[in-house]
């Protein structure tokens, strides 16, 4: 009996000693503490993204990436990188440069059914070798990439361009500077030909625009000039007529492009001075009901929500919103279902800085993915055991956030409102 009592106690004691030994062997005595910094594992910049388990990187390595755009097929993604344009397959690492490095590109949109890109960037006719970024107030132009593998050439479509937005048919609509009290829009087809122009008497300058999913209506954010008020216009592209659908309080402005959905027009707005604040996301989300025509808060988005940017899904049934649930929350990507008014966080940001510019947010054509740009909040010198082009969190990189496809109705069900 004594033996039976002793053996289990001895086994437990042995197990405890073995555990401690194993812990020491595995964790503590590989190398004594040295002045040298051990290289951090690649996962530090790789797998532990800090954005949630389903988020995957689409790029890696150095370079300030921005303005990601999925190709119509969803198999490639384009983006700006330190002022030039690249694209890549979503399944490969290799980048394909589409412009010269000194291009000064700010934004690119896929046009036509091929691999053409329309690029908004520095006006190269004024600045032959554009340094990025394009200075505030500097003239900008729209270019189209030339077909042909490896071509870095572009064709200038128009100068003095203020903003651009893709059209559902593969073309592009853009606003350009015009004379006093007028706005000028032009439509470019997929081949780079300007097929239609519009000119209307409106006070203010177009700061951004987007197009309804059916392609019939453009929604324009107009920034006040002088004593006027900023506001939002809907522009009937068939008739060439516009309607002012919202006036903003004085000193407020729209941030990014208003988004047209059949549940109303959604936009982010706030005080103009706040835009210069280093604290991102000082704005609120508003909805203009197509019935009442009055701006109001968005159901499902709490009063404390601090928005930065938003973009409607291709079918117009959901909104991707970058913002914070409250001023003390981290910046995350949210998806608002406009039919149910359910707001869902689709990232779980722990230690990343997500870019908050409206251009740094893009839906895939099938509505199943959203691309965002983020980097880790890191400080001090870091040492890794891999090459720089394998690192993620140390640089701004593009991430794919799967959001599932909407089960809502088809784009063709949309009506347009003028």
């Amino acid at each position, binding site marked *: 009996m004594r033996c039976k009592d002793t053996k289990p106690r001895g*086994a437990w004691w042995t197990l405890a000693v073995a*555990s401690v030994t194993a812990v020491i*062997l*595995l964790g503590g005595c590989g190398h004594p503490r040295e002045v040298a910094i051990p290289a951090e594992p690649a996962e530090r910049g790789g797998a532990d993204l800090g954005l949630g*388990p389903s988020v995957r990187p689409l790029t890696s390595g150095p370079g300030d990436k921005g303005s990601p755009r999925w190709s119509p097929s969803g198999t490639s993604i384009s983006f700006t990188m330190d002022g030039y344009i690249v694209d890549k397959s979503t399944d490969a690492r290799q980048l394909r440069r589409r412009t010269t490095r000194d291009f000064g590109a700010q934004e690119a949109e896929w046009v036509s059914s091929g691999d053409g890109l329309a690029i908004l960037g520095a006006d190269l006719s004024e600045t032959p070798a554009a340094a990025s970024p394009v200075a505030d107030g500097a003239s900008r132009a729209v270019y189209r990439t030339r077909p042909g593998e490896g071509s870095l050439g572009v064709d200038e479509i128009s100068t003095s361009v203020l903003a651009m937005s893709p059209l559902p048919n593969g073309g592009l609509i853009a606003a350009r500077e015009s004379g006093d009290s007028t706005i000028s829009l032009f439509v470019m087809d997929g081949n780079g030909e300007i097929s239609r122009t519009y000119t209307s008497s409106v006070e203010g300058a177009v700061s951004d625009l987007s197009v309804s999913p059916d392609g019939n209506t453009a929604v324009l954010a107009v920034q006040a000039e002088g004593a006027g008020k900023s506001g939002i216009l809907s522009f009937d592209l068939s008739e060439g007529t516009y309607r002012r659908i919202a006036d903003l309080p004085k000193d407020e402005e729209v941030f990014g492009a208003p988004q047209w959905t059949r549940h109303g027009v959604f936009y982010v707005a706030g005080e103009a001075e706040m835009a210069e604040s280093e604290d991102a996301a000082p704005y609120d989300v508003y909805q203009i009901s197509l019935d009442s025509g009055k701006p109001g808060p968005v159901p499902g988005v709490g009063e404390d929500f601090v928005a930065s940017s938003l973009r409607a899904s291709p079918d117009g049934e959901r909104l991707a919103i970058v913002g914070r649930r409250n001023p003390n929350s981290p910046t995350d990507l949210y998806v608002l279902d406009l039919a149910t008014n359910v707001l869902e966080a689709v990232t779980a940001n722990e230690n990343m800085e997500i870019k908050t510019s409206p251009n740094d947010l893009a839906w895939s054509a099938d509505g199943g993915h959203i691309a965002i740009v983020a980097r880790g909040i890191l400080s001090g*010198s870091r040492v890794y055991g*891999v090459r720089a082009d*394998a690192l993620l969190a140390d640089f701004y990189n593009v991430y794919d956030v799967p959001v599932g496809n909407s089960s809502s109705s088809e784009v063709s069900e949309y009506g347009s409102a003028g």
Partner: protein
Amino acid sequence: MRGGILWALGTALAFVLTATAFLLLAGLFANSPERSLAPSSPNEDPDPSLDLGLDEEQLAALDDLPEQRLGLTVRNEGEEQLSDISLTLEVASENTALTEARYYRATVDELAVGASRNVGFILDLSPPVVPGGSVSSENLEAPQTIVEIQATTPEGVSAVRTVILPLQADS
């Protein structure tokens, strides 16, 4: 006697089981599903027998100026003597629009098993300049400096270290 043998066997078995459990746990975390999401890295520390060590305090003291000293400890942690270890150090900007890079080279003739050798580099870490002045990205007012160090031997033993230096450009 028999009890003693059984006790010793039990002890050994418990140790092996515990160590295996810890190894499995470590492997489990190292191979979490998130890892597979990272882009594959063909250059990830290909050979653990060659180690490159950097000094933390020295890295922290580096500035965006010419003539910055960086010391590197090359250590043979393998089981064979290494010879003709070629060291290449590349200094580049995080801003990829700037293609200018600075290269530095050194060679370690021989390194016995378990031995280490200190190699010093004098680096120019001043911001790259292009015609028309320094170029910076919209979000990168002070682009980080990237120092990539590669060590290779004719036999194919190699190691890589990448240092990210958040140097503040004054210019």
